[in-house]
């Protein structure tokens, strides 16, 4: 805790070495989070970069009331949500033809759930389903808060979650069967 406080002070002062140290400490868990919200690795890296810039900018507001990692995670999620809010009326990408990977049953799944594979499947969900799924299932936000943050109705939030789960269930059918769920 004391170490975190010292690191935070140095980062606020603009010390690049400290800022790099903070990045190296938290980049992996935050990148995993970004990967779940993004549709591709490069989008995830974009989110990560934007999120860290916001973290450095808002570090003065950190009150040391909880773990630094949890606060950074919250800022990262808010940065990502801001991106999706802006995207509501805009087109997601620039003249790029993207191919969704085949929804295929990967043999590795039968050997147990893998974070990377799970993340890949989540990435293949449509953006709206993906965001709601992450916020509800992984982050634990209630539908009311999801609706408020995304500017959608509670009904839409529930519907998107339901569809996301249905799609994932199809992919993971044999997993659930194997796990007797």
């Amino acid at each position, binding site marked *: 805790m004391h170490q975190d406080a010292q690191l935070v002070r140095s980062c606020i002062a603009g010390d690049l070495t400290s800022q790099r140290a903070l990045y190296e400490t938290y980049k992996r868990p935050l990148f995993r989070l970004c990967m779940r919200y993004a549709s591709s690795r490069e989008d995830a890296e974009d989110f990560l970069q934007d999120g860290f810039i916001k973290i450095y900018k808002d570090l003065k507001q950190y009150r040391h009331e909880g773990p630094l990692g949890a606060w950074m995670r919250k800022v990262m999620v808010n940065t990502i949500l801001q991106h999706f809010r802006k995207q509501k009326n805009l087109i997601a990408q620039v003249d790029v033809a993207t191919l969704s990977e085949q929804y295929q049953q*990967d043999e590795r799944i039968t050997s147990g759930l893998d974070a990377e594979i799970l993340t890949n499947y989540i990435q293949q969900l449509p953006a709206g389903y993906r965001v709601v799924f992450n916020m509800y299932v992984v982050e634990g936000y209630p539908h009311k808060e999801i609706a408020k943050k995304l500017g959608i109705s509670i009904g839409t939030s529930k519907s998107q979650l339901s569809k996301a789960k249905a799609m994932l269930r199809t992919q993971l059918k044999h997993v659930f069967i194997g796990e007797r769920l």
Partner: protein
Amino acid sequence: MSQRQDDMNKLFREHLNDASSGSAGWDHPSDAVWDGIEARLKARKRRRGGWYWLLGIPLLVFSGYHLLSSDQTPGINLQPDPVQLAAPSSPADITGKSADRGAFEESGIALSKIDTVDQSASADPGETNQGPDKTTVAGARADGPTISEKRPDKAPEAEAGQDPSSPARAAQKQLPEASGRAGVEQTEHASTTDRTSSTTPARTEPLSESTTTSDLRQPLLMIPLESNQSRMYFSREIPAMEPPEALRSQSTSHWTLSAYAGPSWGSRHMTVANNRPRLAKVLLRQQEEPVLQASLGTSIAYQASRRWDIGIGMEYAAFLLRSDYQHQVRYSRSGEVDNGQGAFESNYRVEINTSYGRVETDIVVERESDAAIPEHTFINLDFLMEQSFRYVRIPVFARYHFQAGKLRMFGSGGLALQHLSSSTLDFKAIQSMSDKVRRVKQLHSGTLRGTNRTTLGFQVGLGVEIPGSEQLSFIINPTLNGSLDPVYSRELIKIFPYTIDLRLGVTYRFR
């Protein structure tokens, strides 16, 4: 929430947060991420320290204002020609000699005299002679142009026929004109002096003896000739500047109509907040090639001054953007389906997102059944896309005319409201570069109908005007049309389309 759903949620949370699972390095971002963060942090530091230069802006504006507002208008003749101001031998010379009068007129100096005269001596039926009296010194430029008047100056012609030997007649002519002339100061001076000092009618009264030629050489001076006598005002008149012959035709109308058309070349400027190259694994190649199209338009302009026009127009422009992409995608045998014709097919959903719209379609990749490939591999797919854009623009512009050697030229600039009236996208997957997966069978070629967008743009151009006749001239006017608003804006990427039009047309000046 059902138990089953709770379990599923728990399952996801546990496995997604398991840092040890997954292939090595899958949750490590590339080094380029920190490079981008560092660059943005350094850029922010530089921006914060650089505000001091803003203090210089008011200084620049203030200096510029003073420079521009100083009186540098050419053509003002503050000092009349000494020859023309040869002292008259008698007052009659001043009042009667048209040559002198003409000289004064040519020098651009208007003379008016307010004098206290014998009111009762007024004999001009046209003059109201009540109370303070007014008279105009003969020789004044009574009928010439003033600052507020336009040319042509009819005074010399008008005066040419006058009988110089008739001062009264000359004065009679001058007074009504002088009193009706704008810009000439006429003030009244209450008479406190002996009004009987002059017995001649007001308008023919010569200058008082105290008036000397030297006074006439000093415009803009109020000279108390006598303490209780007349005052003389000299008003300065600026001769109207004749426009250079080559600049403008001799039309008296202020309106012009132009029509033009020509080739147009369009492209777009993209700004990307971080210049991190995209991962090669997904997008291998992206090339854009603008294609020549056409534009046409018309405008109407008002001649606001000798060099400046302001106007409004309507234009139509089209441009085509050809793009070539190569994607690398995962290929898995487990997703193949035997088509019964000696080949296996795999379906791919293609989603094309552009700045102007979106299309979804499917393509099918075929693999010959005897071609052995690993269970999982990567293949390359080439896509060719053509996007066409059609804009309607309403520009509001200003034009500045100038002479460059023998060429009549103009510069133009302004703002434009741009409306993207339509955009279409045609794409097709053309080939696979993989050794093993040789054929791409195209199921669907998509055509995109784009969203309509209205944005603010700007125009800047330089043109040459080739006179054809008095009213008609030809123009060659390359113009750059750019966007001030991006047609696409995401946090990291902004797109500003632009076109360069070569406008060839005609301009017609109304009479």
